[in-house]
């Protein structure tokens, strides 16, 4: 009985999109920090729930966990969204849709890989799996990973907060570390 090869999900090239800051802002760190501060306090996610994690995403938007407190308003079209929350498993049929939606989102845009399926294929990734892509970072660059199957709504909110700190305090800390390293190197 000849064995047909099962297409193990070879990771397609990490999908790098060249997004640059506008030339007028590149040099001025304070302006960039101000812009980042403004951007991350109004993260509008794209309502793009694929599977079970979508229910927990909806639960995060409802009265009990209420992500409106962080200025998070779900938007239907990618044209008005800042964050793409990949909530669920990514089958091969959905890959082109995810790429199209990611491209149609205006910069600056962030991606949250919500749940084990979006991080690494989760409970459905095993040797011989023909249907899914093992993780969202094989398709689009991902900012924050939230483990869990499905992760609790609080974990999703912590993911949003992680994006906020990454692009504000995170950058400031990085700059401070870089200066300290430069000073130590000079000595």
């Amino acid at each position, binding site marked *: *009985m*000849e*064995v047909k090869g099962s297409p193990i999900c070879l990771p397609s090239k990490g999908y790098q999109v060249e997004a640059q800051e506008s030339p007028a802002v590149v040099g001025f760190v304070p302006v960039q920090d101000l812009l980042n501060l403004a951007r991350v306090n109004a993260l509008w996610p794209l309502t793009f729930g694929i599977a079970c994690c979508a229910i927990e995403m909806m639960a995060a938007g409802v009265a009990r966990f209420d992500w409106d407190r962080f200025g998070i308003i779900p938007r239907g079209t990618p044209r008005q969204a800042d964050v793409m929350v990949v909530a669920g498993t990514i089958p091969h*049929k959905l890959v082109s849709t995810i790429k199209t939606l990611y491209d149609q989102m205006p910069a600056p845009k962030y991606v949250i890989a919500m749940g084990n399926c979006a991080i690494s294929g989760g409970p459905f990734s*095993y040797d*011989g799996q*023909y249907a899914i892509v093992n993780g969202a970072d094989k398709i689009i660059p991902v900012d924050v990973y939230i483990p869990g199957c499905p992760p609790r709504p609080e974990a999703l909110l912590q993911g949003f907060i992680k994006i906020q700190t990454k692009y504000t305090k995170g950058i400031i800390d990085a700059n401070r570390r870089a200066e300290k390293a430069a000073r130590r190197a000079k000595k």
Partner: protein
Amino acid sequence: MLTAGQKKLLVELKSSLAEAVPEGQISESDYAKKGYHLEVRLDKGGLRRVAQTMLDKRFMLETVTAVDFIDSFELVYLYATYYHQYCRVLTRIRIAKDAQPYSVSAIYPAAIWLEREVYDFFGIRFQEHPDLKRIINPDDADYFPLLKNFGKTKFTDQIDDILC
């Protein structure tokens, strides 16, 4: 422990099925162990005749599925009813790997998509099917996933030692 209504219905069913599919073996099976009351085993054909009698008796086509027994396929049609007592009939037919059975979509419209799924996962082509194409897997997929020689199953690898 069949109710009186079920016994009457089963007798009626057996007679109309025997007349519709003389060459099929119709046997009653124990609902408590198997989950269906009547089992119709066909070997040459007669799917559409069974489907027609079932529709006349107001049964619904619950599901169509196939099982890959390495050298042949087994098509399983499940009919259930909710008008009389509850009764479920399972129709089994053994077909060769490259056989092309007739589609019952003319009788049950639900079969259009149920048979498309069987084609999508097993590659069994149904004759007289309105538009037989893939339904779940990507359209450009060239593999039929649920075949036993596809991917990793216990027929392609030593599955037992992997699991325990």
